[in-house]
């Protein structure tokens, strides 16, 4: 009889199972990384088209995905009980909610931790970049923050301020808000396909040569531009590889090398047994370069004696050699002599010894990257990196071995917020 009486109680939302509820720190947070959302049919706004509303919400969810290890998928087909976040517009008494909206002005939306979001349709919600009204995007980002477990934050610049601030032209989630959400869910980690600095040479109107670089991280079929001076990725990344890099494989790049000598200035992408040379003037891979070589070209043809496929590759400007890494071995190729260097292959652990015993990637590297920002070479494997000992290090500590590998560190503690997004919003 008691159980029967319980079924008569009206529950507006089934309480989330305890297992779903706690994140890294024991605070209220989702415990799973893939979350489903839906703009419910009875909750459309009367002010924007349905497509506009869904686009804005996709973008709002993507903005959170870009800075924490959560992915959000719009799901319009599963049973409603399987949807983690339901979004809807209403006025006054709305959508079976216990909290009544107050009409145009003051309260514009509310949200429940790990639950639903309601928007007051008496407010004048507008699309991004509108000069009028209340930005639906900004409100949505704020309310999603609540759903994910963030309370109000009373700090200028925080997206979690309770009062609505008219949208700035560059509204984004700032550093401290990122740390707040990462306190609940952790930072983004994961292996990369390759990492490189891309050199651009330009001439000013006065004829002066200016050389710029940009840092790129590649993973599978996506890439990020990393803004070193801002300690974050470019807003809006990742982007599909095929969008930014034309003519090379659309995923799974093994390595990148920029061979830059007095005679040679060539950029190569490697995948499998082949490689491509990139024509930066025309922003696409060469099908045939000025030397008459057709691409893609076999690694064995362009770099005789080098095995393939490789794990990664790196060009060392100090000695004009390309170092190809495969399994636990490293092979050297002299670009001036255009031949494999004698004395190779060598064990990676011998050529780049560990500074701290047993603290070494050993082999099967993901990437070897020379950074112009740090003026250092880094070995990447999984979520860790090892810095190669350089001259300044040895000046401070002469006992360090030449080309030694410093103790490992977390990639996420040096290059921040390189996060995946759900594939459905990759092209948003």
């Amino acid at each position, binding site marked *: 009889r008691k159980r029967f009486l319980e079924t008569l109680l009206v529950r507006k939302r089934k309480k989330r199972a305890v297992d779903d509820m706690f994140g890294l720190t024991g605070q209220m947070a989702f415990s799973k990384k893939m979350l489903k959302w839906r703009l419910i049919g009875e909750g459309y706004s009367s002010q924007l088209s349905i497509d506009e509303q869904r686009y804005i919400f996709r973008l709002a969810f993507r903005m959170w995905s870009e800075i924490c290890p959560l992915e959000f998928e719009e799901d319009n087909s599963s049973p409603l009980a399987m949807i983690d976040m339901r979004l809807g517009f209403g006025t006054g008494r709305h959508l079976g909610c*216990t*909290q009544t909206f107050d009409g145009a002005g003051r309260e514009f939306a509310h949200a429940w931790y790990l639950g639903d979001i309601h928007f007051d349709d008496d407010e004048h919600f507008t699309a991004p970049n509108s000069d009028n009204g209340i930005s639906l995007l900004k409100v949505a980002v704020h309310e999603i923050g609540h759903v994910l477990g963030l309370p109000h934050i009373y700090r200028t610049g925080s997206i979690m301020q309770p009062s609505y601030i008219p949208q700035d032209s560059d509204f984004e989630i700032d550093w401290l808000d990122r740390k707040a959400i990462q306190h609940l869910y952790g930072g983004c980690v994961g292996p990369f396909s390759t990492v490189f600095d891309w050199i651009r040479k330009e001439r000013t109107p006065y004829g002066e040569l200016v050389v710029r*670089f940009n840092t790129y991280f590649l993973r599978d079929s996506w890439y990020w531009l990393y803004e070193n001076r801002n300690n974050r990725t470019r807003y809006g990344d990742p982007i599909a590889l095929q969008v930014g890099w034309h003519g090379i494989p659309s995923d799974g790049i093994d390595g990148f090398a920029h061979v830059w000598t007095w005679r040679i200035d060539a950029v190569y992408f490697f995948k499998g047994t082949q490689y491509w040379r990139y024509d930066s003037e025309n922003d696409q891979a060469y099908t045939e370069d000025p030397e008459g070589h057709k691409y893609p070209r076999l690694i064995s043809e362009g770099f005789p004696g080098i095995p393939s496929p490789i794990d990664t590759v790196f060009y060392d400007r100090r000695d004009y050699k390309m170092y190809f890494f495969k399994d636990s071995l490293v092979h050297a190729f002299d670009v001036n002599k255009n031949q494999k260097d004698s004395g190779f292959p060598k064990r990676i652990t011998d050529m780049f010894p560990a500074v701290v015993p047993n603290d070494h990637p050993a082999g099967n590297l993901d990437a070897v990257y020379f950074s112009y920002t740090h003026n250092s070479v880094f070995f990447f494997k999984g979520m860790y990196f090892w810095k190669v000992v350089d001259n300044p290090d040895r000046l401070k500590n002469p006992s360090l071995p030449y080309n030694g590998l410093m103790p490992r560190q977390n990639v996420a503690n040096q290059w921040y917020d390189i996060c995946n997004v759900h594939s459905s919003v990759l092209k948003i």
Partner: protein
Amino acid sequence: EKLFHSRDHSDVEIPAAHQPELIIDQDAAQQFLKKYGFTKPVNWEEMQYESAPVPVDDDPAPLDIMSLIREGDVLTRTGEDSAPEDSTLNPEYINALKEFQKMYNLPVTGELDDTTKAAMNKPRCGVPDKEANDTSMVNGTSSDLNETHHNSTAGSDAQSLNHTQGGNATADSTEPVR
């Protein structure tokens, strides 16, 4: 529909009943402070599971409107204004008001001055500011956060390239926007 006459709906009229009561007196301020947790922290999470209130027909008694109707007119509602509330100072209210002023970086006067009213009448999120079992954040930190402050990087992407090709080259990064 909401009434409008212009093609672009820019003159849409919001009925008075669809607008929140402005916070201009102590009563309204007390309700505000109670709603958003300043009088007593709100158990927001539990509120979503309460039974929804049963709708009550609270329309006023119908007027003799036939003699009053003209096209486009707004019907005025007759009625007595409610008597002003007793302004006896309530310590709980004053403390809550001070808490609000402190949290919103207003002068902590304990009085419902114009600055405080303006802050209360701003568009805002409906989630309470003070919740039961709250790890509220001020300045982006909670008491158990090990905040890592972001300092401007000493280096920047603009630096000289020490490369063998020669030439006076200065490295710099482009900063494309979204």
